[in-house]
């Protein structure tokens, strides 16, 4: 039995099945991400003054890496253009060009995920250190030339370290709130292009040591949840587009119209993934 409207649009709606399907799916995705964005806003507005990492961690340089986040945004935007170019190539009956644009799209998707992985790893080796005198610093550790991940105070004790070498973050002057006086040494460090300073801390002075992981602060919890969920969408989208571009292409010979429709629908999902990032990037990296 032939499924009706799999290729030809239904006369009353003007839509083929997959088009309706993908938009209903995207509708559910809007609700899913909407719930997480609401959670982020609620966590943030309920946080007492001074609780959010900006203030609580002393406006660290590189709370998240903005240049890398910006670059990744550009990668995703590029892939959004190439996926629509791939679809239009099919419309023009140019299969080789379609493949070329699909290849670029998938390369961008993988590039995005690789960059994101490095960003995650960098956070797992980025620490907030509470000192006995009540002060709090952030930075990376230097243990015999290595930058360990996921360490806690217990690891310091197990390693029987007397003192800990820390690449301490210099506060990022652009992160200071409006009207807040920026200390002179911070201005000086910025002018000289320094973002870190070496510091040797006796282990006995360290009250707690925690990496930038979800349990360390609600900001990291929501940051990792949202970006990981988004990353899963990038991975899923890349797999589907890879299938359309390089494995399931026999349909192009038997039913080119249906194949073109599939690519259009896959592209719609891909644009949605881009759309989520358009909001996610400023919200978690910039604000």
């Amino acid at each position, binding site marked *: 039995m032939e499924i009706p409207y799999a290729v030809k649009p239904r006369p009353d709606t003007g839509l083929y099945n997959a*088009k309706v399907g993908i938009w209903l799916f*995207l509708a559910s995705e809007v609700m899913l991400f909407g*719930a997480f964005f609401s959670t982020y806003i609620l966590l943030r507005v309920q946080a007492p003054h001074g609780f959010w990492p900006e203030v609580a961690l002393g406006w660290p340089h590189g709370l998240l890496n903005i240049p890398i986040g910006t670059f990744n945004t550009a990668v995703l*935007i*590029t892939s959004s253009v190439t996926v629509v170019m791939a679809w239009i190539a099919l419309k023009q009956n140019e299969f080789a060009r379609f493949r070329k644009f699909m290849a670029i799209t998938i390369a961008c998707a993988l590039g995005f995920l690789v960059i994101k992985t490095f960003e995650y790893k960098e956070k797992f080796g980025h620490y907030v250190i509470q000192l006995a005198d009540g002060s709090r610093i952030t930075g990376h550790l230097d243990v015999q030339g290595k930058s360990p991940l996921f360490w806690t105070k217990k690891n310091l004790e197990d390693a029987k370290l007397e003192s800990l070498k820390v690449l301490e973050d210099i506060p990022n002057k652009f992160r200071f709130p409006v009207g807040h006086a920026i200390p002179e040494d911070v201005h000086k460090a910025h002018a000289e292009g320094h973002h870190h300073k070496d510091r040797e801390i006796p282990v006995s002075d360290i009250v707690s040591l925690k990496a930038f992981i979800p349990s360390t602060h609600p900001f990291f919890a929501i940051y990792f949840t949202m970006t990981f969920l988004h990353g899963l969408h990038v991975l899923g989208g890349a797999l589907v587009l890879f299938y359309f571009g390089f494995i399931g292409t026999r349909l192009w010979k038997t039913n080119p119209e249906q194949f073109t429709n599939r690519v259009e629908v896959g592209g719609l999902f891909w644009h949605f993934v881009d759309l989520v990032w*358009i909001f996610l990037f*400023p919200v978690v990296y910039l*604000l």
Partner: protein
Amino acid sequence: MSDSKHATAPGGTGHHHSHHDYDFAAHKKVYWAVGAALLVGTVITVLAREWEFSSVALTIAVALFIATVKAFLVCAYFMHLLSERKAIYLVMATTLAFAIGMVALILFSDKDPIPGTLPKTVYVP
């Protein structure tokens, strides 16, 4: 631009065409232009961080305004929402209404918190 409909070319005049009549070269130009506009928007958002706005609310408003413009470009041109069928508009308008309702209801709970669910007042790492 689904196959059978009377599509409006992006930024176009609203003349009726079948898809065989589409001016693909013009479409491609529009897609590249939208891609370029999205990149410019991204750069502006990042640079805007270093402008000193007079209030936090204004900073947030500027960032979200640019993001909304970018989202409009993606929806309108890449996702062809400028010239979609009525059924799709109905689905997405309903979704948007529910999404706004959900966000609003969640945020209203800020004014009426459940005792014991508020975060600690001081951050302790």
